């Protein structure tokens, strides 16, 4: 099962390699990894999507917590968290397909951010299944290029 881990780390050079090295060394699989600044200038936040059963995830969390540069690890999997990914997608269009493509973009609440004679570039935000579904839907028209940020996630506020 895929788990989304939010990892607060020191904002220092060398931190990424410590975290990434741990994953390779212990044979854990990273599905995606993002690093960004946080509200605290001394800390960065990594959002790591990792595949594994409960025991593996427990090991990953413990191993991460053990790193001196890691301040906290939380599992943002499931109902209690909101997660999003941003994708930029370049799609082939022709006179015949243009309106159908634009309609699909609309349905998925995407935005056209660039337009050429034979292709358009769409920005899409959503959870991972939504982006997967969009990619699937426009595939027949010609998917030219796909860039995804990897997932970011945050805990829902307690009602």
């Amino acid at each position: 099962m895929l788990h989304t881990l939010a990892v607060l780390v020191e904002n220092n050079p060398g931190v990424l390699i410590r975290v990434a090295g741990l994953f390779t060394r212990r044979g854990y699989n990273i599905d995606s990894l993002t690093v960004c600044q946080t509200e605290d200038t001394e800390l960065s936040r990594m959002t790591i999507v990792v595949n594994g059963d409960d025991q593996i995830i427990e090991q990953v969390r413990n191993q991460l917590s053990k790193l001196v540069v890691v301040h906290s690890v939380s599992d943002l999997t499931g109902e209690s968290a909101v997660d999003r990914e941003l994708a930029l997608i370049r799609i082939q269009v022709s006179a015949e397909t243009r309106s159908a493509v634009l309609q699909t973009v609309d349905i998925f609440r995407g935005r056209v951010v660039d337009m050429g004679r034979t292709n358009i570039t769409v920005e899409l935000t959503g959870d991972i299944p939504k982006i997967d579904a969009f990619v699937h839907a426009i595939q027949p028209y010609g998917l030219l290029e796909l860039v995804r940020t990897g997932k970011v996630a945050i805990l829902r506020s307690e009602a």
Partner: protein
Amino acid sequence: MSEEKAGIKGATILLNALQQEGVDVIFGYPGGVLLPLYDALLDSPIRHVLGRHEQGIVFAADGYSRVTGKVGVCLGTSGPGATNLVTGIANAFLDSIPLVVLTGQVSTGSIGSDSFQEVDIIGITMPITKHSYLVKDPRELPRIVKEAFYIARTGRPGPVLIDLPKDVLAQENVVPFSNEMKLKGYKVFGQANNGKIEEVAKVLSESRKPVLYAGGGVVTAGAEDVLRLFADKTAVPVVTTLMGIGSLPLEHPNSLGMVGMHGTVTANYAVDDCDLLIAVGVRFDDRVTSGMGHRFATKAKVVHIDIDPVEISKVVKTEIQIVGDARQVLAEILEALPGFANPDVTDWWNQLRDWREKNTIQYDKDRLTPPMVMECLGEIAGGDTIVTTDVGQHQMWAAQYYPTVNPRNYATSSGLGVMGYGLPAAIGAQIARPKDKVVLITGDGSFQMSIQELGTIAQNKLPVKIILLNNGVLGMVRQMQKMFYNERYSQIELQGNPDFVKVAEAYGIRGISVNSADQVRGALEEAFKHPGPVLVDITISEHENVLPMVPPGKDITEMIVR
């Protein structure tokens, strides 16, 4: 005149910070980038012991640490000095030994340019250090040094590396920052979980076949006295790992000896048959479990007590997990015991005694055999002697037959199993505890991996007694080839062996050679009577095997016994 405080040199700040941490000795080897530091060292009260190879100095720092519980400190220059330390860092990492490893580095401006003697030692050692620092500003040295020692010795101990660029050491007029630690991300587990303590006390009182399995964590935590009390109160039998040697003396009635690949028959049967296994400060290493966690202690409820949460349920599924310091947790369990009945272990002990009687290995005391040498050595050396070993058959014979070992008196390379460890470890131990007797049990292969350190022994006049079990072969490899490769011996003969007595003598060290059983006692007595270092070269047969032995891939009850 300005009121400004005149600053000091980077290297001096480092040495002052080390002194603040209570460092009395550094095991080191100089080189180009360390010149500013070696210069400053002349004005520092800290003692420096010059080894003969950087691998030797890191092993010496490790030996120093094992026999004192303090953090060992070693120092090597950039490039080759640093890479020569790598094996010793790995050794300390796998056995959870606290070290602060100082390495020289090229000047900050040259880092990354492949300059002379530059290696990325932080990158190279990342998987085998608990943490590491590259110092970019000498003003940060007091904080970094303090953090490094704190990290090295707390929680599950381990090696911490500080990489020191030459310009950082050489900078003059530095006014250091405060040494206040900034370790928000570092967690130490100490407090036991109370509900679980009661639970352990309860399952223990209900158990009929309990076993306590003690490892290096017991020694690290200094929990031997509590363990002994626990054993006395509950009558629970105790098995130890190689790292756990000394946690309960072999002579203690509850001791079943070592468990695992070369463990005693009784210990292995007991672990296999027990209904409750209390594992303290152990990590279910494959030298104990045969690499088959799922077939280990299958009839037992497993209680796992360890300071490192990562170890819990890593290898063996456990019922009760307690993350905490072994001493503290054992003490809390002891306190909880009076609320519960003692377990009824009468039948269990009858069974254990029966196993023990049937499986005590008999050997001929008049023949020159490894067990005979070990027992005679133990008798002559006495209980308070520090023992260090190398790696091979002799290491296992020492573990099986050397009789009395007090806590913190045993240094052996367990997790890494690195040949060449013993002699430098003995050096570190003797320097740490100059008044105590130190004996090295080594083999002819291992000894030659660190033989140059005889120079360190001679230079520092260290009265280490070197007991060389000389079988002329890489005995442990030979044994495997004999047992599992149809006696097809490949590359195990050490035909070019020197006359070790003459080698010792060349360093000004007394050498005694032993070729028959009747010479053993006299030679050992002479060695311990002599005030200086002595090498006793004991010729043994290459046909001796370490038994019992669990063959690879077999359950721990499927031992080869003869």
